[in-house]
């Protein structure tokens, strides 16, 4: 399969990329890793007239801690996240997530920012970023703005990004003491999208959950932030009874569709089971039980 015809642009700087996007408007799509966009173009699900390849812009592939955040640049690859020492030691939920995205060859090209900007509810990082309370930096012709992740996803394959904007950075608040996160995914085989997936981030103080973030993958037309489960967890003890009820509340927030990965009931049940498992793992990492 060969993608439909388009014109290709390879800007060397961010201002050059922004100028091109400003000029081409919604006729253009941004290409970075290309591991979602190119397959969609080959299948004619996307037929942009122009591709603006940001892959040649230097200095955007960083993963670093700075100013109380973990900052992930637009061109940081999934493989880079998996290999990052700071991610493995301080943000294991991100290493959990990167390790189950597609396969190692795809992860050598696929970018973390692209995983969010694609707006696919079946992608894995959206749930994790929702659990972590991340922010994304969108840079456009008039400068940069910060978008909280819970306002970023606006519909199936759509986000708050304007056609003239590039997602230049993801910011994750540095984890406070007593916190832990985990991402758990059920997939039929390596490389498949999730049958269900759950991301949990907990802050535990003095044996009580002070803050909880719960995100769910492929459980509806948009990535899901399980708000009822989050508010229920607050102030509770991190024990099995608490986790069971939070799992039930998380599953109640899902709206999956039936497909070859399973029926609606099965997927809801898996969302419940995986939420409980992610809660256990997150609590264990937080050292709270």
């Amino acid at each position: 399969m060969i993608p439909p015809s388009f014109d290709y642009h390879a800007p060397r700087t961010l201002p050059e990329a922004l100028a091109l996007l400003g000029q081409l408007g919604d006729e253009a799509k941004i290409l970075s890793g290309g591991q979602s966009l190119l397959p969609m173009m080959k299948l004619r699900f996307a037929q942009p007239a122009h591709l603006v390849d940001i892959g040649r812009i230097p200095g955007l592939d960083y993963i670093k801690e700075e100013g109380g955040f973990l900052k992930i640049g637009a061109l940081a690859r999934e493989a880079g996240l998996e290999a990052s020492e700071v991610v493995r030691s301080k943000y294991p939920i991100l290493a959990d997530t990167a390790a189950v995205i597609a396969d190692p060859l795809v992860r050598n090209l696929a970018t973390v920012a692209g995983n969010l900007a694609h707006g696919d509810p079946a992608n894995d990082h959206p749930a994790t970023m929702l659990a972590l309370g991340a922010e994304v930096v969108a840079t456009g012709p008039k400068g940069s703005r910060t978008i909280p992740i819970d306002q970023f996803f606006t519909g199936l394959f759509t986000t708050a990004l304007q056609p003239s904007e590039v997602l230049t950075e993801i910011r994750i608040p540095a984890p406070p003491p007593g916190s832990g996160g985990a991402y758990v995914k059920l997939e039929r085989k390596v490389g498949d999208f999730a049958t269900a997936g759950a991301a949990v981030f907990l802050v535990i103080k003095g044996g009580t959950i002070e803050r909880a973030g719960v995100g769910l993958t492929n459980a509806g037309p948009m990535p899901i932030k399980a708000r009822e489960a989050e508010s229920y967890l607050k102030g509770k003890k991190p024990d099995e009874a608490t986790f069971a009820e939070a799992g039930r509340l998380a599953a109640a927030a899902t709206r999956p569709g039936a497909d070859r990965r399973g029926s609606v009931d099965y997927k809801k049940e898996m969302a419940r089971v995986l939420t409980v498992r992610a809660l256990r793992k997150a609590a264990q990492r937080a050292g709270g039980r």
Partner: protein
Amino acid sequence: MARHTVRLTVNGTPREADVESRLLLVHLLRESFRLTGTHIGCDTTHCGACTVLLDGVPVKSCTVLAVQADGRKVTTVEGLETDKLHPIQEAFMEEHGLQCGFCTPGMMLTSAALLEKTKNPGEDEIRHAISGNLCRCTGYVNIVKAVQHAAAKLG
């Protein structure tokens, strides 16, 4: 229809071609350069038959545009052999690491990249590394043995 001139190094040799924007790297290699060792399997980013090394990193060439490879180094299975076979090629022969052979170029390139990074990978590491390369003959046991054999040869 936009055309571009791409200049890249393929198996150590500088190459140039005039391509459409939409041409995939795998087609540039197979059709323009006649390097047909890079296979097209699923054409949907699953099977890894089209694996090549892009600046030393294994990627699926059915999901890379030829224009994205402009200015970069590509290694295909034809580039593994120097004056003699690469140790990974010898090992695949000696350990019977192939049956029909269709996945073999991709398997060998992914494995060669793994052995560049990791001296003596364990079975788990090997199986993890090749998890994006599918063998429809299901000959994984001997593929893993071949990679371990190559690791031993490379010391």
